[in-house]
């Protein structure tokens, strides 16, 4: 019964998915609204459960491990999913496939859980695919929109290619070590060129998921085309999950080869920050803008990852939390506006402050947090990221990272400028915010304002990482 105890969240999640399936197949006559509320309550229960559980250990050989850190990471993902689900309300309400939406969404969440807990490359791969393929389907959920299909197509093709590359890399690792287990691998790694090649392939596979440059090109297109909730899920939850795994795999499994991957990560970080920023600078569309902004954020995370220390892990996890709140706040506002008016261009946000002060300030809060301005949590997040990266003493790199924050600031301020300073005769009309999105926004705001100023979150993560 160890399994029941350790895999409690996963089992509940699976049960939930199956219940949804039964409800769909049984043609249950409940409205979308009811179902959403039920799912949200369920997700909240899952989150609460995650905080209440304490058990640590492994089952299925080494295929499934769990401990407090992993549970925290899962909770973060659950929280993200919960917020997105709350925000998705207005989009989903009229959707004829709401049940399937949740079915797929929860499957990806389950996939992420399995991926996080994976003890070997096989489970990792399965989890990764499980958290990717349904999203591709989700991206197509604006069924009658060509943009949506196109996004889904780009997503599935890129991810197929990326998983091909990843598998190719895994096969070489398997070939040179004879093991796929994370536990055994470190001892078997020799650092032969073939292994290094495999690691680079692996990093590329990860890089694709977290959209590091040059593996990022799918990101913006997919974000723009996919429905808003899917985009925010992609950019926050799915990325977060892969980041968690990336950090732990890179440090724990390939830690001994850090001298090799350090250079690779630094290169990726530089390219990612620069390209992300430069492209974000010229975006006209809110989703594309957020896509590139998230790419540049990944660049900063890579700075921390290059450090290769416990601080790096802590900073990364912390930043993912901060980023979750900030980005979801931004997506939440954008989603509300998009739903109410269909406007997704940045120029449409002109004069938003006049008509919708709450939305404008929420967006500003989110943007400032993303830009790394105190007292928002983003400031702390970015500070710690770069601090973690500075441990290596590669100061030119750190200077480059610091300078990139200026460009980042430029485009975040541009949107603030549009919302607050530019005047227009036809601002977006007054939008009423339903209860659930309002609650979600409030959650995000609280997260943005409190996570950094109070050090509890960081300290807690650090205690777990150590």
């Amino acid at each position, binding site marked *: 019964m160890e399994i029941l105890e350790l895999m409690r969240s996963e089992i509940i999640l699976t049960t939930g998915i199956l219940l949804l399936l039964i409800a769909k197949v049984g043609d249950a006559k409940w409205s979308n609204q009811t179902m959403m509320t039920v799912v949200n309550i369920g997700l909240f229960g899952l989150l609460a459960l995650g905080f209440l559980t304490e058990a640590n250990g492994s089952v299925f050989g080494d295929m499934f491990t769990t401990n407090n850190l992993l549970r925290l990471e899962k909770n973060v993902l659950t929280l993200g999913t919960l917020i997105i689900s709350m925000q998705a309300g207005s989009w989903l309400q009229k959707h004829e496939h709401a049940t399937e939406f949740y079915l797929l969404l929860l499957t990806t969440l389950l996939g992420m859980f399995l991926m996080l807990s994976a003890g070997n490359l096989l489970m990792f791969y399965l989890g990764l695919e499980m958290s990717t393929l349904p999203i591709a389907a989700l991206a197509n959920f604006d069924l009658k929109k060509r943009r949506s299909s196109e996004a889904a197509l780009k997503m599935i093709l890129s991810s197929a290619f990326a998983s091909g590359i990843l598998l190719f890399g895994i096969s070489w690792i398997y070939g040179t070590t004879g093991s796929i287990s994370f536990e055994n691998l470190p001892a078997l790694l020799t650092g032969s060129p073939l292994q290094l090649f495999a690691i680079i392939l692996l990093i590329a596979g990860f890089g694709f998921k977290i959209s590091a440059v040059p593996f990022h090109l799918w990101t913006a297109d997919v974000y723009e085309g996919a429905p808003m909730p899917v985009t925010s899920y992609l950019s926050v939850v799915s990325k977060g999950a892969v980041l968690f795994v990336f950090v732990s795999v890179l440090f724990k499994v390939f830690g001994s080869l850090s001298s090799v991957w350090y250079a690779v990560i630094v290169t990726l970080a530089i390219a990612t920050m620069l390209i992300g920023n430069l492209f974000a600078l010229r975006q006209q569309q809110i989703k594309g803008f957020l896509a590139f902004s998230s790419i540049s954020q990944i660049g900063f995370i890579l700075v921390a990852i290059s450090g290769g220390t416990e*601080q790096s892990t*802590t900073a990364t996890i912390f930043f993912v939390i901060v980023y979750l709140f900030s980005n979801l706040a931004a997506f939440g506002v954008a989603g509300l506006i998009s739903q109410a008016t269909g406007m997704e261009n940045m120029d449409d946000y002109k004069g938003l*402050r006049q008509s919708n002060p709450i939305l404008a300030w929420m967006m500003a809060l989110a943007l*400032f947090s993303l830009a790394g*301005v*105190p*007292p928002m949590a983003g*400031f702390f997040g970015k*500070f*710690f990221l*770069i*601090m973690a990266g*500075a*441990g290596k*003493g590669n*100061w030119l790199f*750190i*200077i480059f990272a*610091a*300078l990139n*924050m*200026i460009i980042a*600031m*430029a485009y975040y*301020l*541009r949107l*603030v*400028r549009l919302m*607050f*300073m*530019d005047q227009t005769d036809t601002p977006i009309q007054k939008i009423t915010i339903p209860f659930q999105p309002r609650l979600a926004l409030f959650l995000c705001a609280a997260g943005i304002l409190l996570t950094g100023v109070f*050090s509890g979150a*960081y*300290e807690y993560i*650090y205690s777990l990482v150590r």
Partner: protein
Amino acid sequence: MNLLLLLLIPALTGLAIGFFPAKQSRLLALTGSGIQFGLCLFLLNNFLQQPDATLSGALLFQNDFVWYRALNIHLHTGIDGISLSMVLLTAFVVLAGVLVSWNIQKMSKEFFILLMLLSAGAYGFFISLDLFAMFFFLEIAVIPKFLLIGIWGSGKKEYSATKLALMLMGASALLFVGLLGLYMNQNGAESFSMIALAANPAPLAVQKFFFPFAFIGFGVFTALFPFHTWVPDGHSSAPTAGSMFLAGISMKLGGYGCLRVATYLMPDAAHYYAPWIILLAAIAILYGAFATMMQTDLKYINAFSSVSHCGFVLLGIGVLTKTGIAGAVIQMVSHGLMTALFFAMIGMVYERTHTRDISKMGGLLKAIPFISTLFVMVALCSLGLPGFSGFVAEMMVFIGAWENTNTLYRIATLAATASIVVTAVYILNAVGKVIMGPVKKESFMQLKDAAWYERSAALLLIAGILLIGLAPFLITNLIEPGTQSIMDKITIITK
């Protein structure tokens, strides 16, 4: 006394403004900043009663919270005479700023909240003894500035606001590298604590590498040539209170940082880079003055002259003598009060005449005597007339600079001294065109003189200016122990 009160009150005021209706905002803001003002005076009183205050440069009222234990980041606060004088300056300017903004109509709630946030940032910055906290508070102040200019400003406000925010952000980025360098290269435990860093400075090579980052980073805030270009645009586009805060407090953050962080924590590098600092400062002083001469917009005049005046701060720091450093501190306080008042007066003039072009005004002394008189007074202060604070500060910097016998320093000092003439030229030109001369428009005679809130703001600031100008020993005695302990650091290292 717990220094965190200084942060608490603006924060609470901001919150209260948020919860009460917009009509009450200004009253709440006034109450909050009034209480804060009283608190600062109370703090001064308490400070002077401490036996340590006047004897040693010890940091008093220390309060050390562990903020991020894992990273050895603390919220460590404490003050000495230097920081106290900056805190007092902030209290003066904030109170005056709130008074001047009494009649703000547009989004008054947000306006006052941002003002409070900005002031909280400044207070926090000045009382912090931990570099992280300092950086945190420094950055807090950036966005309110951006919004204040962009929303309530005039002219090409968006451009100016963006430029200001980006340049300050760039400065922060450099600064960030400098601070991290200090943190990482600390002997023993990594730490942001200024006390620990000062006790145990980094090796010379490290200092040499990181000093420029820290110094330029802070320098941009205080209009270090050639990174001053945000100053004229930012100041001229900002609303009155915004300009007052920008020039009165915000630029001082940089000067204080240059002194407290760059010079104090990296004394060897400070000596190494001193000629460059002096060169840049002298250029800024003269160049700023000459550039001012060509301006016709009142706010530009004051903004460019701020570049020139802030050059004195850097010069004082750069010469690395006790008098020079004391002069720099006094210049910060003096310039803060003076330029805040100047902007306040310009704002009042602008509100009435709806122009800031000096060639379109004239004879205001006849129409609005109170404002004009104060205008003339602050102008005279700006040109360094004895009796006003500017004179004291400039003279201290000159003497401090002249103490150093190096020829380069002397030439730079001479160049800087020459600015007193150029300053006189542009200031008197402005006064002559705006305040004196024939009354340009009939309508000027109908203008109303200052209302009570404007009067009290102006009198508050001029009182500060006159206090320093007439009794400079008050402030020199206050900061003397602080400068002495900085000097000890600097000289011991070199010997």
